[in-house]
């Protein structure tokens, strides 16, 4: 303990002897960090800006930074397409697929984390590697299956697809999370007379809520942004916001403002969620990279 204190004192003194250098470094880092952050964010910013312009302003050269904003483009988009319908589909499919996925993944991850066998690691690798196949590889069989069962262009169909898509990573994330639980606390619960169900209900679940939330968030983001299956298995009825965007991708002309408005409306909800829960989201994103 005292060794730590002395070393801290020594470091502090070392820093104090070059304060100017330290301050300069801090300023330089702050400037650089902000520069790159703003640079990375800029395209989104520009997109947002353009959504409030008129079509004429949107393609003005040189590009306009200052203008009177208008909501015209948003109104046009709402008039042209059923935005709310698509948004609702996106919301429904993301939320339900994530919830369903968790219902399957949590028990599986729990089983692998707390009752590991020799085959557990192999199983984990199999689960993860099943995710590697590009969707396009399974497109035809699945399309034909869906057609056969009448699931094309249904919300249920899309929900199931999203769930299956995210399941491997969900299992892996939850597994890593559950392994982090201190073993002794679970042993204490067992000594206190807890059965397996008690252990799960009173100890494991409450302590892993954070990890579950992070996993859920990441998977929701992925479901929301999913474009491949929504375009191929969905249509006007069950189409998600990906459909809305797809309808703008054919070059009808330079309707940039409307395109930006539509894009903004498509990405805004999930971005807001991501910003709001950024801490949890980052935790989910770190995918067990950090012990």
């Amino acid at each position: 303990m005292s060794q730590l204190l002395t070393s801290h004192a020594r470091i502090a003194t070392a820093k104090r002897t070059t304060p100017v250098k330290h301050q300069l470094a801090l300023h330089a880092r702050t400037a650089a960090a902000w520069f790159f952050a703003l640079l990375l964010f800029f395209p989104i910013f520009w997109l947002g800006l353009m959504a409030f312009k008129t079509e004429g302003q949107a393609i003005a050269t040189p590009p306009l930074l200052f203008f009177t904003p208008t909501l015209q483009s948003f109104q046009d988009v709402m008039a042209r397409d059923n935005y709310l319908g698509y948004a609702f589909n996106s919301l429904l499919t993301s939320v339900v697929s994530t919830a369903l996925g968790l219902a399957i993944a949590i028990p599986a991850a729990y089983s692998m984390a707390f009752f590991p066998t020799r085959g557990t690691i192999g199983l984990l690798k199999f689960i993860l590697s099943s995710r590697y196949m590009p969707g396009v590889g399974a497109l035809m069989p699945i399309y034909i299956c869906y057609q056969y069962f009448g699931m094309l262009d249904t919300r249920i169909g899309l929900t199931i697809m999203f769930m299956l898509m995210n399941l491997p990573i969900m299992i892996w994330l939850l597994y890593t999370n559950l392994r982090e639980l201190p073993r002794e606390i679970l042993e204490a619960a067992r000594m206190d007379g807890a059965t397996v169900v008690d252990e799960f209900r009173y100890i494991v679940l409450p302590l892993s809520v954070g990890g579950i939330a992070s996993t859920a968030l990441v998977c929701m983001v992925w479901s929301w942004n999913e474009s491949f299956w929504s375009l191929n298995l969905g249509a006007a009825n069950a189409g998600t916001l990906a459909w809305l965007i797809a309808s703008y991708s054919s070059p009808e002309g330079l309707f940039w403002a409307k395109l930006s408005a539509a894009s903004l409306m498509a990405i805004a909800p999930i971005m807001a969620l991501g910003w709001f829960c950024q801490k949890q989201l980052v935790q989910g994103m770190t995918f067990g990279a950090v012990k």
Partner: protein
Amino acid sequence: MAYLQLNNIEKYFGDQHAIKGIDLTIEKGEFVVFVGPSGCGKSTLLRLIAGLEPIDKGSLRLDGRDITALPSSKRDLAMVFQSYALYPHMTVFENMSFALKLAGVESAVIRDKVDKAAAILDLGKYLERTPRELSGGQRQRVAIGRSIVRDPKVFLFDEPLSNLDAALRVQTRIEIAKLHRELGATTIYVTHDQVEAMTLADRVVVLRDGQIEQHGSPLELYDRPANRFVAQFIGTPSMNVVPAAALPQLAELAGSAAHGDGFVGIRPEHVFLGAQRADSLAATVDMVESLGVETLVYSRLENNVQIVSRGSERTSVHPGERTHLTFERGFVHHFDRLGNTCASARGAL
């Protein structure tokens, strides 16, 4: 009849034979301490008794019941973990009442029991706090309280004091001793600290490499160790043990026939520094440690054998000086080639 009976308990971790056949009988109300060096299997043995690891061979009986195959939750044992293992998302009250809640006890009864335990451990003001808000010593008391509330058949302690600082350790040690006197509960306590073993135990079990080296009351182990390992493990600084051939005088004092290839031992407090006498040996002082209450002197005999002596008088010798060592008659231990005791101090064996 024995309260807790271990019969030929064995445990394997893969190929490693961690516990090699332990037989032990523990009476009701006894405070038994498992002590031994790192890796000797004391914690493993505790966990086997607790049911946190399965027993590979042998049987375990508690109060007449065979609990060898029972899961931990049904053994009616309580354990205080080294890291306390408190439930971080529950308050102190909830931590202490968890077991009772699981058992379906009425909340009025729970309240009563928790309050009583909290009173004994002086935790009354902390009942609504979470573990995060407590100090190390307080958390430890909550861990103990959690066990007391359950009124189990046996208390199990796994090195509970090792995470506390020195002062708190002494204080808590006394509290545990008092608690045992008040509650009279059967206790098994694991530690690597032999001071804890000596002060807390009714009976000490010394373990090495998965086997019991000796068990008995603390003083029994101190005065009449069964072998060299126990002799040197119990007591600090440890007993001076040298090959008999190197110190024939000591062998003579032990009073036994020439076991020329064995070892002789004598505890530091029975070695005296002083002027030359008929039966003294010349030595050079290597190092002096003055602890205030006593002085430890590390000396080297002419044949390069190092002897530690311990005396309550302040001494004026300095490193490098020459002095003379005498050994108190009747306190010499004699070990054979394999380390087993042939002749002990105080006339035993």
